[in-house]
């Protein structure tokens, strides 16, 4: 399953503002076709958690003698069964149009995040207020609905001292509309270098964790979507909810100088330790 992710691309990011403008026009057309997503089927889904050790880092603070035990992490519950009611708490009560984005209920979201660690929180320690989750209705058919998720959450390993802040989690919920039941759920950390920020105050490091995910169920083969938006468009809509700077017209680094010459404008370059459009830095 390709969830896609806002990965660190060598050449930067596309113009979010332009794509959002197109997305908004498409969304306006979809407003008269609302669907009610009902999860009253009374079913359940077993979800498996996976969490690999830190594979690489810059400063190796996780390996220091006093810190090593803090960062020997594994899921609080390797396997957890969630009811349709648990998933239903992630949905809004009102009908949705294709492309609609809504904020996830924090309590409902943390119910899932705590499968990783009891210290899960959306109140990020750096105080930027960028924690929480949003979801977007990406695709609809008569039988199924697909929701994509984006979550910023972190894990308090030792209050006031040690924090584990993944770049983001991207995910998906696939709903069987006839059976009113979730058939697939996934929420995972993008697999790329520099995808987790760790802090043992006052020190920080940016690290690579190959795998941190929740997964359950499976999508049926060959779902024929009657309406959908591209996954990238959905991800952009979700990113825009977290980050106002998404309104800046960004161009890939490799194209910036050429564009500057054509438009006779200076270049504004932000160079970072970790990706701009997530919480890894």
């Amino acid at each position, binding site marked *: 399953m390709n969830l896609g992710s806002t990965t660190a691309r060598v050449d930067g990011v596309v113009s979010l503002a332009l794509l959002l403008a197109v997305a908004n026009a498409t969304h306006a057309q979809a407003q008269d076709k609302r669907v009610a997503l009902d999860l009253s089927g009374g079913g359940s889904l077993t979800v498996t958690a996976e969490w690999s050790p830190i594979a690489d880092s810059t400063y190796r603070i996780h390996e220091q003698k006093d810190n090593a035990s803090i960062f020997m992490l594994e899921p609080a519950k390797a396997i957890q069964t969630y009811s349709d009611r648990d998933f239903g708490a992630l949905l809004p009560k009102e009908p949705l149009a294709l492309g609609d984005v809504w904020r996830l209920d924090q309590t409902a979201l943390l119910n899932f995040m705590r499968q990783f660690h009891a210290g899960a929180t959306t109140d990020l320690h750096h105080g930027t*207020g960028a924690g929480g989750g949003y979801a977007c209705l990406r695709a609809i058919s008569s039988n199924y609905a697909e929701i994509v998720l984006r979550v910023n959450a972190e894990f308090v390993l030792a209050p006031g001292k040690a924090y584990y802040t993944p770049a983001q989690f991207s995910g998906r919920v696939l709903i069987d509309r006839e059976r009113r039941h979730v058939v697939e759920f996934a929420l995972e950390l993008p697999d790329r270098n520099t995808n987790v920020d760790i802090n043992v105050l006052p020190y920080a490091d940016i690290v690579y964790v190959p795998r941190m995910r929740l997964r359950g169920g499976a999508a049926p083969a060959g779902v024929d979507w009657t309406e959908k938006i591209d996954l990238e468009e959905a991800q952009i809509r979700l990113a825009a909810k977290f980050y106002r700077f998404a309104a800046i017209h*960004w161009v890939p*680094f490799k194209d910036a100088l050429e564009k500057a010459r054509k438009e006779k404008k*200076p270049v*504004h370059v932000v160079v970072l330790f970790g990706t701009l*459009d997530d919480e890894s830095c």
Partner: protein
Amino acid sequence: MRAGPLSSNAVIDELNDKFVNTWILRQDVVRFAGDAAKGKDPRLPLPKVAPLPEPVDARLRAFAAEVYANYTYPVDSLLLDADGKFIAHFPASDLFTYQSPDQSYSQFLQKASKRK
């Protein structure tokens, strides 16, 4: 940075109106700059990165080298003119020294208009 000046409507409008905007990971600047990145600061290890799959043209390599030569670890905003020459930079660590980071960032951006 992302929650500060880059989220200010005034800064966003100014950036969109007067600049070509891009962001890049330090490790990727190093990949573009190639050998020109070596020796910048022996205390700061170069990130371990695989080389780019395609050759980088000389102009882009020089641009990346100019960015890296003037970059302050770990997060920095740089202004370069349309020929790729360095004008000014604003390390993110400096944000904490200003009472009004948004205003300070706007003043930083104005350095580009003074370089004509």
